[in-house]
């Protein structure tokens, strides 16, 4: 007898479970920020507890990789020597440019924003999915991190904060399919949108005039939209195999260990139109509303006239 009931009841229960799960998916689709906040809290609870194990294992795997490179030690040495020669030439050039830059800044009396400071975080974990490109940092709201701030490695922009927990924060990388960053291509000043597509070199979209952009040009953030600070190095333009303009990122994505999160302070929005530009208000003695006493006198004189 119980066998007869067990099957339908089981069906109903499993059907209910599936319905709840699909409803959860629909809820995510409709009100994504709320569910994502819940996800951030959940990850914030779970992942930093693995902190003690994640970092050593990562380092150990990295060491195994380094051991494997012993096999090709000689070739590597030769290559490094060559690169070192080239680097020396570049270093000279860089030093001269730095001096020149300092002189020019001095001449122009440029004030560099003193508020641009950073918080450095260690990469705890990555997204765990081959279809999403993001990493988890061990700094969070507790350390004053806010959503939208830029994350860089030593050289270039890596991504921006999207998702914040108490102890952790998620950096969505420039290569993620959901990443859109307003950029500027340097010598020509063309503005474009860098939109990730899960490939190592994200393409440039909405270039104003693609003829002016050449492979080799430098790409920096433009600061449009007021989320990221302007002028952070992103990478170099390359022509992709599909004849699209793509950006080879300056940051070393193969070795994300420490990231700097730039504290960009809220830009003060200029909302209302400017007030009337008028000469400074004169003292009450000159124009101003008339004091009461003379008015009373005038009224009195009028009465005496009439």
């Amino acid at each position, binding site marked *: 007898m119980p066998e007869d009931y067990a099957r339908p009841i089981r069906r109903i229960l499993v059907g209910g479970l599936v319905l709840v799960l699909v409803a959860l998916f629909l809820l995510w689709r409709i009100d994504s920020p709320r569910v994502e906040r819940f996800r951030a809290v959940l990850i914030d609870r779970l992942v930093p507890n693995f902190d003690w194990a994640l970092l050593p294992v990562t380092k150990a795997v990295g060491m195994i990789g380094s051991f494997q490179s012993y096999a090709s030690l000689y070739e590597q040495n030769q290559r490094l020597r060559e690169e070192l020669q080239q680097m020396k030439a570049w270093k000279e050039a860089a030093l001269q440019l730095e001096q020149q830059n300092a002189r020019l800044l001095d001449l122009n009396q440029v004030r560099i924003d003193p508020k641009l400071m950073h918080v450095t975080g260690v990469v705890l974990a*990555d997204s765990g999915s081959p279809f999403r490109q993001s990493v988890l940092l061990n700094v969070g709201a507790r350390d004053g991190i806010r959503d939208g701030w830029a994350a860089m490695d030593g050289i270039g922009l890596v991504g921006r904060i999207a998702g914040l927990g108490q102890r952790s924060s998620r950096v969505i990388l420039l290569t993620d399919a959901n990443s859109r960053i307003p950029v500027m291509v340097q010598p020509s000043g063309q503005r474009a949108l860098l939109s990730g597509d899960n490939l190592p070199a994200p393409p440039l979209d909405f270039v104003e005039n693609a003829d002016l952009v050449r492979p080799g040009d430098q790409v920096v953030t433009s600061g449009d939209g007021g989320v990221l600070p302007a002028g952070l190095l992103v990478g170099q333009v390359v022509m992709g195999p599909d004849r699209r303009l793509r950006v080879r990122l300056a940051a070393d994505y193969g070795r994300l260990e420490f990231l700097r999160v730039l504290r960009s302070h809220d830009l003060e929005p200029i909302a209302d139109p400017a007030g009337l530009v008028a000469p400074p208000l004169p003292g009450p003695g000159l124009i101003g509303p008339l004091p009461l006493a003379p008015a009373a006198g005038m009224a009195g004189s009028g009465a005496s006239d009439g």
Partner: protein
Amino acid sequence: MVDLLHSTIWRHRAVFVAFALALFFLRLLPLGTVAGTWPGPDLMLCLILAWVQRRPDYLPTPLIALVVLTEDFLMLRPPGLWTALVVLAAEFLRGRAALTRELSFAMEWLMIAVLMVVLALAYRLAFALALVPQPGFGFAMVQVLGSIFSYPLVVALSRVALGVHKPAMGEVDERGRRL
């Protein structure tokens, strides 16, 4: 006796959860931060299907739902959808456990392969219906192929290491009941 029976079942459930945690841990390691690498097989799916096919009593539906939902949240997938599909697939296999008990491994593999492809297609269809941007078709199919080819490995490993196998004719559990 009851303790013995329950200890086998509960031991396997514990092993399943431990395997899931280890898998999440490995996938969360920040090693693959370069975009565009090929996706690996979905071992979690292989394990669930293989165990449900062999010993449905080891994996009750709530446990499957809980583990896969956690995976959904940790791996940045839209929560719930994949879990619902996996629960449905497990239920499909569970309902046919008596029928498929006599199948040869090749036929079982074929069935699982078809099931995995159907799951992936349904997942993508739901994405398309909900207008959610999704990764390229080829990319997703590479993952499905990887899962299909690692299925025999998972089966062999769980048989050798954990003794998860289809109950033979007339096999009894620790309480002497027919399986």
